[in-house]
């Protein structure tokens, strides 16, 4: 919804009327729909929600996350992804059979993985790396951003991340938990891409972000390549794009 951006603080009435449905970041109090978190109001049809400006990452089914192995249990791995709790990767959710005694050979402490959240209902957040494009990552560079800015980095249907990738030739995987993995031709390339992403995060609420970013990319000495814009992205980045886009 592109109308004026209204900022609410907790306890503030957003709309009144029994036909509105309170969604994320809101609750109903009598006739009013009230903000529960500090953020920007979004009213779609009659569904009211508040898009947070800050706060820790909240895992959802279908999200792509990038995390680190912090513990190994009898039947899987515990992954720290920056949220309040850890995620669990079960032995059943890896692409091949692994002997229970050889867990460390497959994924060891400190290894970073790209994983998909497939269940958040149970006691823990369960992730999987069975699909193509998920699993252990090696080389490249990691960076952490505010998870609430991830939709801006991905852009509409992945346009922003595609723009950066096609202009710089650097592979980018954006985890919805705010961790980003960059793998370019060399370290200079990756540092430049990190600059671009930080620029997007710093300017995330400004209008005409795509144009500004294109300008920024040009200033870094890249040529903006738009030829592939029509093609859908088919790698891992594609996964992170399809789910949960806020705008």
């Amino acid at each position: 919804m592109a109308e004026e951006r209204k900022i609410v603080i907790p306890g503030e009435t957003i709309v009144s009327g029994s036909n509105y449905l309170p969604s994320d970041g809101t609750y109903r109090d009598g006739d009013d729909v009230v903000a529960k978190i500090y953020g920007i109001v979004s009213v779609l049809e009659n569904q009211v929600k508040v898009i947070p400006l800050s706060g820790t990452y909240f895992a959802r089914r279908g999200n792509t996350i990038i995390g680190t192995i912090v513990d190994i249990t009898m039947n899987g791995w515990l992954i720290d992804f920056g949220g309040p709790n850890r995620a669990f990767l079960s032995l059943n959710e890896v692409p091949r059979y692994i002997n229970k005694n050889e867990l460390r050979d497959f994924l060891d402490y400190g290894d970073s993985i790209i994983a998909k959240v497939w269940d958040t209902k149970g006691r823990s957040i369960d992730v999987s790396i069975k699909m193509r494009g998920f699993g252990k990552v090696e080389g490249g560079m990691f960076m952490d951003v505010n998870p609430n800015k991830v939709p801006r980095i991905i852009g509409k249907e992945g346009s922003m991340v595609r723009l950066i990738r096609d202009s710089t030739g650097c592979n980018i995987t954006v985890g919805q938990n705010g961790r980003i993995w960059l793998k370019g031709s060399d370290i200079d390339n990756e540092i430049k891409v990190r600059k671009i992403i930080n620029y997007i995060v710093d300017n995330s609420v400004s209008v005409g972000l795509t144009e500004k970013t294109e300008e920024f990319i040009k200033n870094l000495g890249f040529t903006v390549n738009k030829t592939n814009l029509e093609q859908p992205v088919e790698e891992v980045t594609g996964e992170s794009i399809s789910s949960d886009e806020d705008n």
Partner: protein
Amino acid sequence: MVAEKDSLYKERFDGRQFKELRPIKTAVGIVPSADGSAMFETGGTRAIAVVRGPRTLHPQHMQDSQTGILRVTYGMMPFSVWDRIRPGPNRRSEELSKVCEWALGSIVDLAAFPNSVVDVFIQIPQADAGTRVAGLNAAAMALADAGVPMKEMISAIAVGKCDKTLIVDMDKSEEDFHEGEGPTDIPVAVTSRNKNIALLQLDGKISVDELSEVIGMAKVACGEVLKVQMKTLKERTGELQDG
């Protein structure tokens, strides 16, 4: 309120009206590495609040599998008063941590973060009475800034009585007014939406009728504080939009 004719405190030391607040200054996001932070200053009192979390709670036996918990730590800095405050926890700071925790605990909703903790650190770099209420005001803004789900905001003010005169937002010189009935200090915290009282303490002596008048005055004053808190939070994002 007009000072009662026989009260010994007829005019405020700093020339304020009896219901007038000290000048307020606020800021949000003063500690970039934290999840949320805020500063609240009234006159000579300044409080900063920093929020970390939600994050996994250790020791594990304190974890609640149904909901996250809130933990508040209040402390005055050694240099916050003219002589020195011994650093570290003491009887007073432990009590204030506890009452601030109860007040803020009534508004936060941490059901979405089982086994987690939200830590709120309130520090007082400069004290001139009313530090717990300034701390609560800062903490409420810092919690909002951290994106912690809350049912409503909280605003707090200390209402006092010097001899027989009721005054809003008393400062240290008024707290030390020992003529007649002496000083009475009543910190009150009011929630923004339902106007519930989240904190009410009394240090001194007061009649029942006067106390209900005090609460009425506190609610009006908290409304003014809330306006400042809301303005600060809303303008913070405005700044971001320009940049």
